[in-house]
């Protein structure tokens, strides 16, 4: 199996379009380190940052229209091949990827990925949290992703992304995506996502769009104790998002309606909840950026599905200040107050982040 994959890769790189072109590459290192203190604890589990020190390594190899792209995250918490994608550049605007990718209906993750330097706030919205940090939506899939763009309505630009792949599974520890370096033999099901957004031009981040996803998540041993007898969960998501990226202000927000069907041995149940967030960033003199984020939800407290994820914050207020003190290095301080299903807590964080080519 591995030999056939290797042969396929060699065939692709030596194919006529690839052979004529020199091999080119890029390497990006995004390290960060942080400290966190929690206080005013009125919840059983207060989520603290697991990744105190991390290095996010991004590499891209390109030969003609073929690309090999990956992201490896090393931290005091984990060492994971987060993305590993073989891409075929079909045209200027269209690329087809196969491999492990971040699913396109998480706006935050699809824009920022794992590197801390490129996101202004220290933490991401709870709805977009990674699986191994208590996330409630599947983020890593292994399959195919088609990203494209086209002119629309005269001068507007339409961006689309379609994806389908092997979905994470649910265990007592939360969600576990397929690990390419240590693949498991458990039963996995599939998930499908679509995203479309309109932008004033091809390059700007400003725009608004819609998200759709239908993911099937298998429950495997060790079974979650909160929902005994759970076999699998069908998660259907519809969402809207918008971003305004000006020179002084950046505003972005997303809202997701999540319907879940929980299939037990011999029965099934369903629930629905809404989660959203809005973030405002303001560039200030002396390379400072202030930001606030408001996260909230509806029907989250009564959701049986969310009982599987004890670290999920159904409401959160975040405020912070980032200082880009030298080129490609920043210090950020952030305060947050989080309301979980079983109580609330506050935390203060300090982070250094950087980007090195």
């Amino acid at each position, binding site marked *: 199996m591995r030999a056939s994959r290797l042969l396929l890769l060699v065939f692709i790189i030596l194919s006529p379009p690839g052979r004529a072109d020199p091999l080119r590459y890029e390497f990006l290192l995004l390290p960060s380190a942080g400290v966190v203190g929690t206080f005013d604890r009125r919840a059983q589990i207060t989520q603290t940052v697991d990744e105190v020190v991390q290095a996010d390594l991004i590499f891209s190899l390109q030969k003609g229209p073929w690309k090999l792209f990956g992201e490896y995250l090393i931290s005091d918490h984990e060492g994971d091949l987060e993305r590993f994608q073989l891409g075929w550049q079909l045209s200027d605007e269209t690329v087809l990827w196969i491999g492990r990718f971040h699913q396109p209906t998480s706006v935050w993750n699809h824009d920022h990925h794992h590197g801390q330097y*490129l996101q202004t706030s220290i933490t991401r919205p709870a709805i977009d949290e990674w699986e191994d940090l208590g996330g409630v939506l599947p983020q890593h899939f292994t399959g195919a992703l088609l990203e494209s763009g086209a002119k629309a309505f005269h001068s507007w630009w339409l961006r689309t992304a379609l994806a389908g792949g092997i979905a994470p599974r649910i265990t007592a520890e939360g969600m576990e995506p397929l690990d390419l370096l240590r693949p498991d033999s458990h039963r996995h099901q599939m998930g499908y996502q679509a995203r479309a957004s309109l932008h004033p031009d091809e390059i700007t981040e400003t725009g608004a769009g819609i998200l759709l996803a239908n993911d099937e998540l298998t429950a495997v041993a060790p079974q979650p104790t909160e929902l005994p007898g759970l076999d699998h969960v069908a998660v259907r998501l519809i969402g809207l998002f918008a971003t305004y990226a000006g020179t002084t202000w950046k505003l972005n927000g997303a809202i997701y309606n999540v319907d879940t069907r929980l299939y037990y041995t011999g029965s099934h149940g369903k629930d629905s909840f809404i989660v959203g967030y809005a973030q405002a960033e303001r560039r200030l003199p002396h390379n400072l950026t202030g930001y606030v984020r408001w996260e909230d939800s509806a029907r989250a407290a009564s959701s049986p599905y969310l009982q599987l994820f004890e670290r999920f914050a159904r409401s959160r207020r975040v405020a912070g200040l980032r200082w880009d003190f030298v080129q490609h290095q920043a210090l950020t301080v952030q305060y947050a107050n989080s309301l979980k299903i079983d109580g609330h807590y506050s935390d203060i964080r300090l982070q250094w982040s950087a980007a090195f080519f």
Partner: protein
Amino acid sequence: MECGVLLNMRRALQLFILLCLASQACAASHTLVLVVRADSKVSDLDSLTVRKLFLGLPVLVEGGLLHPVRNRSDAELDPIFLQQIVAMSQSAYDRQILIGVNRQGWLRPAEVSTVSRVLDILYDDPNAVTFMWLHEVAHNPRVRVIRVLWSD
């Protein structure tokens, strides 16, 4: 006396012609052009495509991916590159390049600090696209000017 006046007029005329030639030479040295190898498949690139190319976005011509080369052989080129080609500040450009690598694995343009190295890359790579002062390539049969990017 009359002879002296004529001499002065002649000198003034010579000075005027000299100044005209100098200003012409100066104008020629301040025209920035987009260049490719003489046998490149690239025949024309509009300003939006040039902007995309130097922001690291993929640009294909007849199935071949173009390779942007940022010419930094002259300090005067940087402000023109930022204002006229990519239309953003240095910090915004740096961030755009980082975002492109992080999201899509786009490659940032190669940066070259000498004219001879820029020309070597052009001679070696039919998909390379760069920008140079017109006087540096005006009579070079191995490269082809695609368009004027800027002129003072």
